[in-house]
């Protein structure tokens, strides 16, 4: 067995709202193996982003509430049962995250060099003070404990070179607004990697970018994953973007994982009717079809998830059992898992 960096175990998350409970995640179990890129793909309301936020303890509780059996295990610790102080240490040192909007994630009043330096300093301090129990303690120590500034600067420059910023000396003294969208995303990636995390979470990191810039960022992420030996949870609504970078793909629908497999198996022999639907709904460049094979209906609201298999009202292969019983995510064939009654048990 390969080593696992992060394990989701039966993660269920419900938000209490005025209109009733919203079941954002239901029974999500998933492993991220070391050194691999796991792509999570799903349409709006599938729960993919809230899965990422859960990993960093960023879901406010209340209104969010996790199921009793839910756990997210990272480095032997259950993140759902960690204190805020423990989570602070995990964020940015064990797990880093890059978001969709680089502009809103970078501080507009600090120079790019300073923002990356902060991440580097925290990492150095944390290493020196293994027993440090909180980030706020480290923060206050930053001023007191003399950190070798030239060493930090060297490291910042190196990271900027790693993310292929052509003139790193010049970039140090610039403010985020002076950069284009793609350059800002490179700075975000630099900050995330400065912490030398073992897991990188990328939530739609290229969705706000133009296609040529997206191509650059996707190639960069792939290269860096190899160089830094970091595992990645890569979230996107776009199956083709995920296919470009991921080793494995998990498909989410209405808060559940409906299929997991390696990227080739998903592309060549998708099992779940929803995965097949997504693959066929995508127009191809050399398109010869007169019409696309579209899935009927629309993505369900998480306030009113259909009973049984949540996909059954849109499924072309639906049969009576699908309306009554939620299919479990179970192994099928030589690799992968699928949650669909077509593959498990009796059809009647």
């Amino acid at each position: 067995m390969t080593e696992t960096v992060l394990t989701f175990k039966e993660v269920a998350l419900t938000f209490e709202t005025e209109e009733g409970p919203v079941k954002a995640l239901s029974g999500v179990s998933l492993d991220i193996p070391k050194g691999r890129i796991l792509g999570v793909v799903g349409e709006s309301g599938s729960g993919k982003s809230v899965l990422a936020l859960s990993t960093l303890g960023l879901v406010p509780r209340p209104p969010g509430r996790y199921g009793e059996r839910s756990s997210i295990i990272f480095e032997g610790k259950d993140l759902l049962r960690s204190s805020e102080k423990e989570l602070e240490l995990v964020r940015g040192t064990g797990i880093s995250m890059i978001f969709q909007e680089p502009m809103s994630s970078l501080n507009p009043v600090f120079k790019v060099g300073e923002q990356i330096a902060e991440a580097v300093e925290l990492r150095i301090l944390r290493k020196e003070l293994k027993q440090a129990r909180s980030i706020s303690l480290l923060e206050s120590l930053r001023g007191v404990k003399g950190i070798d500034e030239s060493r930090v600067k060297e490291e910042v420059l190196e990271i900027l070179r790693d993310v292929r910023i052509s003139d790193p000396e010049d970039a140090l003294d610039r403010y985020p607004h002076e950069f284009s969208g793609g350059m800002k995303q490179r700075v975000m990636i630099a900050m995330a990697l400065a912490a030398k995390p073992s897991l990188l979470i990328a939530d739609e990191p290229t969705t706000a970018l133009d296609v040529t810039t997206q191509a650059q960022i996707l190639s960069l992420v792939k290269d860096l994953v190899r160089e830094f030996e970091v595992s990645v949870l890569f979230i996107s609504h776009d199956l083709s973007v995920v296919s470009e970078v991921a080793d494995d793909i998990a498909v989410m629908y209405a808060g559940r994982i409906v299929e997991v497999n390696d990227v080739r198996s998903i592309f060549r022999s998708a099992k779940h009717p929803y995965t097949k639907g997504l693959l066929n709904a995508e127009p191809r460049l050399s398109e010869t079809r007169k019409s696309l094979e579209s899935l009927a209906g629309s993505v369900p609201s998480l306030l009113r998830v259909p009973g049984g298999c949540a996909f059954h009202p849109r499924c072309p292969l639906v049969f009576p059992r699908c309306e009554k019983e939620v299919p479990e995510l179970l192994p099928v064939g030589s690799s992968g898992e699928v949650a669909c009654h077509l593959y498990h048990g009796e059809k009647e």
Partner: protein
Amino acid sequence: MSDGSEVLRVDDLRMYFDLGVSRLDRFLGGEKERKFVRAVDGVSLTISREETLGLVGESGSGKSTVARCILGLIPATSGRILFEGMDVAKVKGRQRRLLRSKMQVVFQDPAGSLDPSMRVRDIIAEPLEATSGPPRRQVDEAVERMMELVGLAQEYSNRFPHEFSGGQRQRIGIARALITSPEFVVLDEPTSALDASIQAQVLNLLKDLKRNLSLTSLFITHNMKVVSFMSDRIAVMYLGKIAEIGTRDEVISEPLHPYTRMLIASIPKTDPDNRFTESEEGRRIMEQGKEAPSPINPPSGCVFHTRCPYAMERCKVSEPGMTNVSPTRSVACYLYGDSEIPNRAT
């Protein structure tokens, strides 16, 4: 298919947005140069009857500005737009209202372009009432017909936009655009805000409508795969200019302009054995690492030369004009011809 008669002709269209002189510069007594965003800088194109022209480009390429000029929503800086022989900028009064009913538009954001306080029935009816004002019964019939055409159930006619999903709202937008039986429709990123499975439904609907109603349209998108599915011909825009224009098959299967090639190479591939991140072209794009410059200070010569892997000395100083490489296709690139645009002072 197209009978070849021309519905729309755009001649050397320019749209410069005046940024004025910066107040700080005026205060400091420094540079007093007026700055302009050259959003559209010399675009010419034609659209024939029953044809869909796809206009594709990245953000800042000027594709939406071209559409707004065509629709007469903003006055062009220079150039001419002829719709069925009428100069869009010059028609007035009744003629203008008539023109409006013949040209309609569907916008990207179905939530932002529908009045939240109006019922679906009234949203769809509004363009018809505004242009010809037929009797109520006739309007009701037309609304019913439109709702059926775009696949909306009649019982929804008294609901408000917020009660609908994104895909359904886009159907409302399409019904509203088609109720005046327009001869020409601008579709400005109509599926970009939609989920993949819903995008397929709306694209299929648009394609069916195009066939069944013999629509002529301009389809604007940043998505090469979508434009390839929808278009008969494709124009590729970069920094306010058309880089290449030709039939769909020509542009997609054999892109000529280096920018078109870069765009096509950058498309994420669903097939993991065909990844651009592992292709030669993809490597090149990444290593070169440049992004589109600002349209405020476009590069001299060919606007693409700063990112072009084939740039020659000549590309830096003089601007290539459109060269016809086949009866249906032209490219603005010195690799394919010597046509040159004389330097013009602005």
